[in-house]
C-alpha cells in the first residue's frame, strides 16, 4: 500500500461525491420551481398547497425512522400533533405569537414526543413494535381530548393569532405569506436532512436498518442511535405541525389521529422510503388522489387508492421514486 497508490484511489473517489451534491441541488431546484408554478397555477388554492408543505415535512420525518432506520410505526402523527399543539398552546394560552418562536417551540415539542414515543416503540420488535406505535397514537389522541382546558378537546384549539414574521410580513387572507414561509422552511429542513443522512450518523442508521446485529458487533449502540434519530425525526415532524398551526391558526384532534399515521406510512411506501425524495412524491400522490380522484369518483376513490397501492407494491416494490431511480441507474450503466 504505497502512499501514491492510495492517493490515486482517493482522487478517483471524488466524482461520485460531487454527483450526489448535484442531485441535491436539483432537488432544491425542483422544490423551488414547483413552488413557483404552484403559486401561479393555483393562486386561489394556496391554503391547500400550504397544507401539502406541512404534510411533506411530516412524511420526511417519517422517512427518517421508517426509511432510514427500518422502524415501522403507525403512530408517527403523535410527533406531528405534539408540534402542532405545542405551538398552538404557546400562542393561545401563553401569548407566544411570534411565528418563528412558535415553530421553534413546535420543534422542541415534537422532539420531546419523539423521545417519549421512541423509548416506548423501540422496546418491541416487528409486530410488537407496530402495536406499541398504535398504542402511542391512541393514548396521545385521548390525552389531547381529555386535556381540553389546554387543547380545546374535540372542538379544536383556536385563538392562534401569529404576529407578522419578523414584524414585517403579516399573514394575509390569501395565504401568500404562509406559503412562502412554508417553502423556505421546507428547503431548510430538506437541506439539513440531506446533510444528516449523508453524515456518519446517517450511515450508522442505514446500517441498523440492514443488519442491527452487525452494528452491535461493531461496538455501536443500536438503541441509542435509534432514539437519537427519533428525537431528530420528532423535531422535523414538530416543525411541520407547528407550521400547520401557524398557517391554519387552528389545531384539531385529527392531527393526532391514527388515520393520519397510517396514511403517512402507506404513502411513504408508495413514494419510496429511505430517499427523502420519495416523501415528496408520496405527498403529491396522496393529495392528488385525495383531491382529484375523490372529486371525479366520490364513491370509489378509496378503491382506487387501494388498487394503486397494490400495483406499486407488486410492480415497484421500492416505491415510485426508488423504482424510477433504479431505472435511470440501469439506463446509465447500459449506455456506458
Amino acid at each position, binding site marked *: *500500500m504505497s502512499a501514491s*497508490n*492510495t492517493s490515486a*484511489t*482517493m482522487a478517483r*473517489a*471524488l466524482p*461520485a*461525491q460531487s454527483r450526489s451534491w448535484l442531485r441535491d441541488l436539483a432537488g432544491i431546484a425542483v422544490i423551488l420551481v414547483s413552488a413557483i408554478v404552484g403559486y401561479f397555477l393555483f393562486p386561489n388554492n394556496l391554503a391547500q398547497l400550504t397544507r401539502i408543505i406541512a404534510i411533506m415535512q411530516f412524511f420526511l420525518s417519517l422517512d427518517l425512522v421508517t426509511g432510514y432506520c427500518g422502524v415501522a410505526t403507525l403512530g408517527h402523527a403523535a410527533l406531528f400533533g405534539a408540534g402542532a399543539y405545542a405551538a398552538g398552546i404557546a400562542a393561545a394560552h401563553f401569548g407566544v405569537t411570534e411565528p418563528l418562536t412558535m415553530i421553534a417551540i413546535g420543534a422542541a415539542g415534537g422532539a420531546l414526543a419523539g423521545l417519549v414515543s421512541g423509548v416506548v416503540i423501540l422496546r418491541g420488535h416487528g409486530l410488537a413494535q407496530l402495536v406499541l406505535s398504535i398504542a402511542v397514537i391512541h393514548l396521545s389522541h385521548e390525552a389531547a381530548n381529555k386535556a381540553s382546558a389546554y387543547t380545546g378537546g374535540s372542538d379544536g384549539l383556536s385563538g392562534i393569532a401569529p404576529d407578522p414574521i419578523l414584524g414585517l410580513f403579516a399573514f394575509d387572507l390569501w395565504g401568500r405569506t404562509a406559503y412562502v414561509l412554508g417553502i423556505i422552511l421546507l428547503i431548510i429542513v430538506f437541506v439539513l436532512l440531506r*446533510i*444528516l443522512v*449523508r*453524515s*456518519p*450518523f*446517517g*450511515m*450508522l442508521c*442505514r*446500517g441498523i436498518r*440492514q*443488519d442491527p*446485529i*452487525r452494528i*452491535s*458487533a*461493531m*461496538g*455501536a*449502540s443500536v438503541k441509542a*442511535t435509534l432514539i*437519537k434519530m427519533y428525537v*431528530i425525526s420528532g423535531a422535523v415532524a414538530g416543525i411541520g405541525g407547528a407550521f400547520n398551526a401557524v398557517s391554519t391558526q387552528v389545531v384539531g384532534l385529527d392531527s393526532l389521529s391514527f388515520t393520519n399515521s397510517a396514511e403517512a406510512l402507506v404513502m411513504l411506501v408508495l413514494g419510496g422510503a429511505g430517499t427523502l425524495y420519495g416523501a415528496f412524491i408520496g405527498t403529491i400522490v396522496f393529495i392528488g388522489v385525495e383531491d382529484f380522484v375523490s372529486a371525479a369518483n366520490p364513491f370509489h376513490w378509496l378503491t382506487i387508492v387501494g388498487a394503486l397501492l397494490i400495483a406499486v407494491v407488486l410492480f415497484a416494490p421500492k416505491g415510485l421514486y426508488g423504482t424510477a431511480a433504479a431505472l435511470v441507474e440501469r439506463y446509465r450503466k447500459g449506455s456506458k
Partner: protein
Amino acid sequence: MTALFEVDHLMKSFGGLDVTRDVSLSLQKGDRVALIGPNGAGKTTFVNLVTGHLRPNSGKVRMGGEDISTFNAMKRVQAGLVRSFQVTRLFAEMTPEEHVALAILQREGKSGRVAGSFQAMPEVMLETYAILETLNLVALARMQVSEIAYGQQRLLEIALAMALRPKVLLLDEPAAGVPHSDTFLIENALAQLPDDLAVLMIEHDMDLVFRFAKRVIVLAAGEIIFDGSPREVTEDALVREAYLGSYAHASSAA
C-alpha cells in the same frame, strides 16, 4: 502474567442439552489459535457466549484481567473483543468503502456525527483505502455489497474486523462458503493481521488450520478435549474418536 483474554469455566445449556460444558481457555498477545471440532460441537455457541450475544449459565470472561462477563455485546467490542460471522453479515445496500469507514468512525467515536461526510475526512479515507488495499478490495470499493462475490464479502468481513483494531479477534469460519481455489485469499488476509493481535479461529478447512495455527483447541460435545500443538492433534486418540467415531480405531488398525 495475566492472560490477554481468558475464559473461565463457561457453562451453557439449552433446556436439558449442555452445549458448553466447563470450557476454560486463555489467549496471549500474538496467539494464533484454531478452534476445531465436529459439527454441533458448540463452536459458534462458544463465540456467541464469549462475545455477549448469548448469556452463559455460569462462568466468566476476562480481558486483560478485567471481568467483562456483565458487559453487553457492544461494550465487549469496545473493550477490544471483536468477532466475525460464520455467515456473512454485511449491509447489502452499502459499499465496501462505507463499511470500512463506518467501522473506523465507530472505533474513533465519530459515528454519532450528524454533519459532514467520511469522504471529506482525509485520515478516515486514508485508513479505509489502506485496509481495502491490504485485502485487494479497492477495485470494488464503490460497488454495493449485494453485487460482489461471496468470497470478497468474506474478505470484507475481515476488513471490518481489522478496521475495529481489536485486541482479541474471534474468526468464525472465515473461509466458509469460499471456493477452495480462493482460500489463499483468506489466508493472505489473515497473514496481514497485526502481530500482537490474539486470534482465535474456528475453521473446518484443515489445510488452513495447520498453516495458520500455532495451537489447536478441539471442542467436542461442548467440551474441550484437546489443547496443544497442531502436530500432536492428529495423533490424539480422543480427537480421532470425536471426529471419526469407532472408525478411528478401524483406520488406525488398517
